[in-house]
């Protein structure tokens, strides 16, 4: 190791640091070459660039570097536009690109995979939310943008993550075979792709319309409780009423059926005789939607 902490002060290391800072400079190749930070690596100016990068018969050195520089942001922006297709639609290309361009400068790609490129985009938007929106009583435009980005990133994670397609998730029949007296002590293990998330807007409806090629109008605020999962390799999303969402959340967090149902029943406004049928309907629906992998009997 050298004094500046770099693995080695070799010519190769220096050349790579120099080239990367030139071709990823947000203001282009010439600004990259002249940038103070770049000149601390290799002190060469544009008029002396041929000391580092040769020209060809047809093209000067700066134009040759521009092939890489032009490609760098365009390639990454294209990936982000595809991953955040609904956010891209709602903002329009120019505004989306402006946000994405700032994001790529604040958080340049570090992973070997482009799959990680958008991982911090929702957080970046949240951290750069206008102060007046943070203080607002009702969800604002920027809240909508963050919600969309969160949803689309979740879709990517669920699409690529582990699923249940090769296994056998819990079916409604499996639940029916559990002895009644065993029910309260049971714990249900969620499938690995199950996610429960709350949004200020029904962004899932907007996103679906965009992917169908429709031109949806931006949604109005509406507290939305989504359960997300994957079946047949496609990401599925369902909005649940808040009481059902909270009971499902309690089960996912490890509560026993007795605990989760008890908490729900104590808060439910349903008349007593409707509680049991409603519980049965909910559990059967969850099992039919493959939310659970297995049941742990007491």
């Amino acid at each position, binding site marked *: 190791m050298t004094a500046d902490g*770099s*693995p*080695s002060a*070799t*010519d*190769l*290391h220096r*050349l*790579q*640091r120099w*080239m*990367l800072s030139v*071709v*990823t400079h947000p203001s282009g190749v010439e600004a990259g070459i002249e940038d103070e930070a770049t000149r601390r690596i290799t002190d060469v100016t544009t008029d002396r660039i*041929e*000391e*580092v*990068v*040769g020209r*060809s*018969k*047809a*093209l000067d*050195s700066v*134009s*040759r*570097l521009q*092939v*890489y520089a*032009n*490609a*760098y942001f365009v*390639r990454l922006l294209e*990936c982000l536009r*595809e*991953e955040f*297709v609904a956010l891209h639609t709602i903002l329009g290309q120019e505004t989306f690109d402006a946000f994405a361009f700032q994001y790529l400068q604040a958080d340049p*790609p*570090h*992973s*070997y*995979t*482009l*799959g990680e490129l958008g991982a911090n985009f929702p957080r970046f938007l949240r951290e750069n939310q206008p102060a007046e929106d943070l203080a607002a009583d009702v969800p604002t435009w920027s809240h909508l943008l963050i919600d969309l980005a969160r949803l*689309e990133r979740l*879709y*990517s994670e669920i*699409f*690529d*993550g*582990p*699923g249940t*397609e*090769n296994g056998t998730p819990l079916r409604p029949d499996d639940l029916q075979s559990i002895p009644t007296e065993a029910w309260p002590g049971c714990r249900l293990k969620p499938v690995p792709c199950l996610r429960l998330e709350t949004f200020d807007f029904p962004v899932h409806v907007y*996103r679906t319309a965009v992917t169908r090629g429709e031109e949806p109008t931006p949604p109005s605020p509406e507290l939305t409780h989504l359960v997300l999962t994957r079946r047949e*390799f*496609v*990401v*599925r*999303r369902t909005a649940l009423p808040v009481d059902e969402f909270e009971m499902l959340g309690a089960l996912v967090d490890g509560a026993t059926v007795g605990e989760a149902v008890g908490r729900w029943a104590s808060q439910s406004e349903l008349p007593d005789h409707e509680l049991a049928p409603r519980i049965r309907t909910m559990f059967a629906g969850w099992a039919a939607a493959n939310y659970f992998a297995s049941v742990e009997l007491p």
Partner: protein
Amino acid sequence: MSSAPRLGHANLGLGVGLRTTHYPHILEKWPAVDWFEIISENYMDSGGRPRYVLDQIAERYPIVMHGVSMSIGSTDPLDVEYLRKLKKLADDVNAGWVSDHVCWTGVTSKNSHDLLPMPYTEEALRHVVDRIRTVSEVLERPLVLENPSSYVTFAESTMPEWEFVRRMAEESDCGLLVDVNNVYVSAFNHDFDPFEYLRALPMDRVVQFHLAGHTHCGTHIVDTHDGRVIDPVWDLYKLAHELTGGASTLLEWDADIPPFEEVHSEVLKAKTVIDGDGPLPETRVAADDVEFAEEAIPHPAAFVTAEAE
């Protein structure tokens, strides 16, 4: 050091690069293709559809893995986690071999997601040779490396690319993937003779060939993989075939991808070269038919987007 032809690997015939848009066609028709090449990074982290499709295809066809993220030439440490996943995928799909590019993709832990060129110096050669040895040990198989398309040359280079590639292969005992289109692209961009390049390579180490289309911008050519193989590239392929006695040949088509059969028929044109029976088909694209493009972006990596209801 000498080796058996193709490092002992079989000549798999004429293959196609597996792309997401062709999944439905392949799964429905199971077309008669000799073999498929996959982009390793599109599968090594997939727990969903891409991996499921690959597993089915790997049951029926030979699979070869081609990566874009090893960054063998970088001065950053090798990504051990990446290599571990690469080896696991290679074991899982029984990959014929694992290839990447003579390049670096980033440094100081920043990744450009591009295939950036090496300076061809003694220092760079030693660096790459050392790392190839390490990677081959981790993967427990010899690495195969491809000559990249490039758009700049470095003043500090002390040898031509073909000498660097030859010495790299011989000193590290790795295999070569000769991308004939890349030889053509770089020869135009750097004013060298592509035939001289091919003649200088250690042909007994050539495990595989790539063919592809490119975009001519007048002053330079960009490796876009977005069209047919042009005549001069077929001419180079003919020489490469003669020099090697034949090796597994694959067509890359990554942008404006036509239906599967069209991609497949493009690589099957190589039969005319291999069988050595006269001129290539009528559908050839002559070099002077090419219209110049204003701008072009090389896309070394394909990006897979989520499917959602």
